[in-house]
């Protein structure tokens, strides 16, 4: 076939496939937003949830989701960064490295409920962490690590070797080259990885039912002592996240407005994720500019 015609056909196919994807995604997000936004109000965002009467809000669940995300990233990001650097820069190309990679990939395929139960038996019961945000954050670390490690590794590897050679010729140590030159260039890719894993944290329910729990006890937002059980900063309190709340009202919710709460919460969740993503991209760009002297 004439290469030019082939080129045109290929272009057309790609455009059609992209169009289909865009339509599906637009329908999906549109469906969630259209069914959800009418139920969002200031009252909905700022009041506590109700067990059985109508008019409950999602204040605590919303905060818990965000707090859980922060805790999870604090635990998982450093480990993922170190491992990503190891795999991208230090690991020799041999069977052992590929064994490590396979093991990490297998970790990501474990069903959430298995990881949830594992963390329940080990951390909640055995280590007596109880149903707590911390247990939840540890459980979510299991999902985050593979994705985060992988994307850090890929972004580091995609930095051209020229940069490494330049670092070496300046007499820098490999570590210095990695942290001072390679890492800053890889920031945008790493940010994407963080955003994707953050999405998983926001959306996860099954693993949290057994770890962070599915109840949201009353908390006080004026108590800044993280060791006080009533404080909103206490990582040892049980915390139902927004995704778990959606799951709960859909499965055993007896409130008369269960379906409204569910669609309202889904829309809020999407909006929060959007804000988080935009914020992370902005921050990433800022960091990138600052650290790579591209400005």
């Amino acid at each position, binding site marked *: 076939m004439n290469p030019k015609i082939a080129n045109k056909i290929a272009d057309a196919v790609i455009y059609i496939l*992209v169009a289909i994807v865009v339509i599906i995604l637009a329908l999906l997000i549109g469906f969630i937003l259209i069914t959800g936004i009418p139920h969002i109000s200031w009252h909905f965002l700022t009041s506590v949830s109700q067990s059985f009467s109508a008019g409950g809000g999602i204040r605590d669940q919303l905060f818990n989701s965000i707090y859980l995300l922060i805790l999870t990233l604090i635990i998982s990001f450093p480990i*993922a960064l170190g*491992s990503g650097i190891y795999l991208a820069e*230090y690991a020799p190309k041999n069977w052992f490295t590929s064994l490590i990679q396979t093991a990490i990939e297998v*970790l990501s395929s474990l*069903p959430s409920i298995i990881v949830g139960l594992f963390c329940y038996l080990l951390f909640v019961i055995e280590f007596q962490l109880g149903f707590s945000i911390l247990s939840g954050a540890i459980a979510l670390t*299991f999902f985050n690590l593979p994705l985060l490690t992988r994307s850090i590794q890929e972004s580091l590897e995609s930095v051209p070797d020229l940069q490494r050679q330049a670092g070496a010729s300046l007499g820098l140590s490999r570590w210095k080259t990695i942290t001072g030159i390679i890492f800053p260039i890889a920031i945008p890719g790493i940010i994407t990885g963080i*955003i994707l894993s953050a999405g998983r944290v926001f959306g996860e329910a*099954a693993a949290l039912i057994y770890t962070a729990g599915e109840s949201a006890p009353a908390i006080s937002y004026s108590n800044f002592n993280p060791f006080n059980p009533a404080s909103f900063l206490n990582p040892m309190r049980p915390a139902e996240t927004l995704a778990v709340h959606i799951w709960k009202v859909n499965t055993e919710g007896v409130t008369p407005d269960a379906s409204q709460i569910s669609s309202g919460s889904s829309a809020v969740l999407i909006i929060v994720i959007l804000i988080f993503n935009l914020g992370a991209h902005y921050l990433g760009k800022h960091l990138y500019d600052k650290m790579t002297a591209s400005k």
Partner: protein
Amino acid sequence: MDQIKAKLMKPSKETKQETVGKIISYTCIVAIMLLVLLVLYFIISFGMSTFTKNNVNLWSFLSGTNWSPGQVDAHGNPEVGALPMIVTSFAVTILSALVATPFAIAVSLFMTIIAPKHGKGFLQAIIELLVGIPSVVYGYIGLTLVVPFIRHLYGGTGFGILSGTIVLFVMVLPTITSLTVDSLKAVPRYYLEASLALGATRWQTIYKVILRAATPGILTAIIFGMARAFGEALAVQMVIGNATLMPKSLLTPAATLTSQLTTGIGNTVMGSLPNNALWSLALILLLMSLVFNIAVKFVGSKGDLNK
């Protein structure tokens, strides 16, 4: 002189930095490996107890088609045949990955090569958004839109592998796409430039150079996507029908390993046979994803340009 000599003999600042750096990164990888080993040990020890403590025959577990732990068949053996779930899990995973991959590659090419300016920001934002939608929400949208749609189109109840595949397709799309984008970006830019300079059309460049160079990365993306499909429970459970029957077609209700696991685990007691049998399902899941990984690695290494 001695001072200079001492300075020269001592490890340099750079060497020390290097040591510190190595220690940090090695510690992290060891930490991850420990976590992995811990989980593996946990699942294997629980999953094996069906065979070691409850004396279930391994072969009858893998090839049996009757799943009702807690009940015994005519010979007094417990009815724990996991074959229907194994088949269904494979079917939905492979089908959804097959459907999603061309779409994901098209979108990634669009975002990186064809229209990076228009495509990137917008599509990337949507894709990142999709990852965060809880499975439950996917499940209910599947229940309200996909299942009735399939029912109108093909009759029957609408619950089945086909509905499961459609829902999973949307769920794995972001994972496969974003990782494919990463691997396309990792292809050195001079490959593209060299190919275009030789007079190749854009499609020839994409097909003969870029996709070839990115093959291992794309395959990894597919593994991650399949892993997500494999491990997904809440959404699939709602649309696939969750009936432990051998799937006869894409339209009859079926159950995956994870959907059975999720429904059953809260209703069984730790250490009893029904519970152990569920852990054995988890073990199968683990082994299957291991097989996937190794198979795809093997295929991927053949297309690697660096070899």
